[in-house]
């Protein structure tokens, strides 16, 4: 009580001083209110944060299933990579002194994706280093949110596959060595071996469809990706009309994760519908080609990153087409 009285008294004393400042703040808020006198006054409720939140929601079932199947280690890897990404994002923002408003969740998406794509026998320091690489170098060095050229999560996994795994002698085991051991349904529902977040094709598809129905992503890229992948596999991979084999190829190595989550990343994919189709076809075809002629089944991340490099070109080509259409109208 006493302190309150004191406060009042002090305020009363300094009234002459206080008043102009309060008036000033009032005029400032008024100016802010009347500042936006321009329509539209309606706004749709989607913001960057809600979009990123939706992506996390879509990824969660598959991630949780991976934890359920592979236990604490899978959980720890995901947790480490998410934490590392979020912390790196914060530090980078501090250094760059930018106020990339809100908190965007985009680092969480990157971290979660990376954690889901890493193998179980990865050393614990890698998710941490990968987060720093993905956010610090791939994203923030290129200008932060919305400016990165490559998909951060896919790039981090590429780094792991190219540098870390061979150096440390980690073999990319975990894949069914002989096809006879795993059936299609085992692969589809995630009861075979693989990366923690990639095993359940079914749950990834479910998450992908959640995004499609939530209008977060369009079907262009995923459909083009999967069709192109299957087509190249069928023609050059020697599968022909062996649908069982093709379906198995679609279910391993995170092809669905790539199609619905990596290739549809807004920032690193083309802007308009035709570009998205083109991008899906290129990345899908590349995935299949790398699987057939490359050195690893882990083709998805390489294909996505290679495709990302082409995005500016695709954008230029497709946007020129829309401009031409305009001219014809004149």
């Amino acid at each position, binding site marked *: 009580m006493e302190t309150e009285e004191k406060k009042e008294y002090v305020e009363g004393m300094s009234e002459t001083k206080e008043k102009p400042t309060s008036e000033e703040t009032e005029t400032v808020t008024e100016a*802010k*209110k*009347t*500042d*936006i*006198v*321009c*329509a*539209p*006054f*309606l*706004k*749709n409720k*989607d*913001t*960057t944060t*809600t*979009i990123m939140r939706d992506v996390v929601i879509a990824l969660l079932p598959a991630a949780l299933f991976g934890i359920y199947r592979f236990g604490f280690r899978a959980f720890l890897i995901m947790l480490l990579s998410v934490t590392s990404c979020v912390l790196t994002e914060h530090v980078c923002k501090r250094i760059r002194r930018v106020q*990339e*408003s*809100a908190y*965007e969740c*985009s680092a969480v998406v990157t971290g979660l994706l990376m954690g889901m794509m890493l193998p179980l026998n990865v050393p614990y320091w890698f998710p941490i280093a990968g987060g720093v690489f993905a956010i610090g170098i791939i994203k923030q060095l290129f200008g*932060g*949110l*919305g*400016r990165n050229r490559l998909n951060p999560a896919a790039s981090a996994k590429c780094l792991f596959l190219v540098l870390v795994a061979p150096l440390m002698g980690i073999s990319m085991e975990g894949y069914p060595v002989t096809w006879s051991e795993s059936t299609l349904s085992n692969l589809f529902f995630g009861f075979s071996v693989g990366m923690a977040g990639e095993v359940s094709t079914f749950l990834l598809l479910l998450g992908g469809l959640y995004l499609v129905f939530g209008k977060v992503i369009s079907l262009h890229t995923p459909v083009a990706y999967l069709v192109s992948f299957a087509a190249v596999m069928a023609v050059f991979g020697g599968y022909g009309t062996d649908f069982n084999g093709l379906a198995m190829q679609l279910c391993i190595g995170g092809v669905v994760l790539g199609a619905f989550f990596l290739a549809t990343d*807004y*920032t690193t*994919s*083309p*802007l*308009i*519908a035709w570009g998205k189709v083109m991008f899906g076809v290129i990345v899908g075809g590349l995935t299949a080609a790398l699987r057939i002629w490359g050195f690893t089944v882990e083709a998805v991340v390489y294909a996505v990153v290679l495709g990302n490099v082409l995005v500016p070109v695709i954008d230029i080509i497709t*946007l020129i087409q*829309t*401009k031409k*259409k*305009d001219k014809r*109208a*004149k």
Partner: protein
Amino acid sequence: MGKKTFRGGIRMDDGKALSKNKPIAVLFPKGDAVYPLSQHIGLTAKPVVEVGDKVLVGQRIAEANGVVSAHVISAVSGTVKAIEERLTVSGAMCESIVIENDGAFDLAAGIGVKRDYTALSKEEIRQYMKDAGIVGLGGTGFPTHVKLTPKRDDAIEYVIVNGTECEPYLTADDRLMREEGKKIVEGLKILLRLFENAKGRIVVTEEKKEAIRGLTDLVKKEERIELVPVKTKYPQGAERKVIQVVTGRKMTASMIPVDIGCIVHNVETVLAVYRGVAESFPFIRRVVTVSGDGVKEPQNVLVCNGTSFEELLELVGGAKGEPELYVAGGPMRGTQLTDLSVPVTKTVSAFTVFAKNMAATMPESPCIRCGRCIFACPEGLVPRTLIKYAEADHKEGFVKQNGMECCECGCCSYVCPAGKQLMQNFKRLRRTILDERRKR
């Protein structure tokens, strides 16, 4: 169902249900009526009354000044109190005639006399329109008699009545088509008398089911008139989009509809034409939608020109709580009102009141390249490229990227998840560029 539509645009929660099912109420104001002399595009009208004069309902108080101009007509009876500068909806000051309302609403002579429009010549029809002081009621306020006087009457192929009313919350046109459908069709027939080669088209969005049902019956016997139901989408009501959907012809920003043989009129304008020509009733009242989550009883009201927004709000039952945002017009293209004492003029189609200013509370963040603005743009532009030029005030780049084709519908700003003020910036730069061009 294969209804006609255009590329781009957005679907949204349009809030029309608030006021859709209530019949139009008629309001008579008690307070002073204020008539700005410039309620239209073109030269300011010249006052023909003086302070202290008695005026009657329907009496001309200011005369059209030059070719592109329109009369101003009083909607109340009383005494001229002052002729002075007053604030208008746009926030600018404009010379206005203030009339002290005596509440009697005495009609001037000759109002309400029925005429047989089929016996009138073209010149007479145009003269009666001019006398009635009709301007385009869709929002631009272009004098109707001028719009209906193209170089060659026989070059007009389509007279289109725009009943799409795509702006969210607005239901005035919908109500009018339901309640006054017959007069609207008659009004269109008057317009068709002016253009012997023209076909009449009434464009209505498909969600206005009752209006479509009523109008279908009415146009069944008319050979020259056809009803065109189109998909519900914003901004279907934009002039260029209406023409595109009816004729398949595309317009650029530098063209006017007459260039491709079209004349587009808002539903209420056509109704005003009928009233003015066939019933000698000047355009002094219009239907205004008062809606939004900030008013107690959203509804459509027939309100006298010159009534202040303050009184209008009182007459419909007042505001709910303390609304943050008052808008003259709809929320997508309207103007924010900071002072409610300004009068309702000829071009005000709605008064929307919102508890919260949603657009103002949204912080801006970097573009994440989602491409939604490109998908939503009805003109096929790339707003995310344009915004870079607009933010840097780079005029050449903006024009080169077809920025002048922007129709300022606001779809891009509506969908942007980063909360960028796209359309607001385009609008500002377009105004600057247009001003510069005019000066040259």
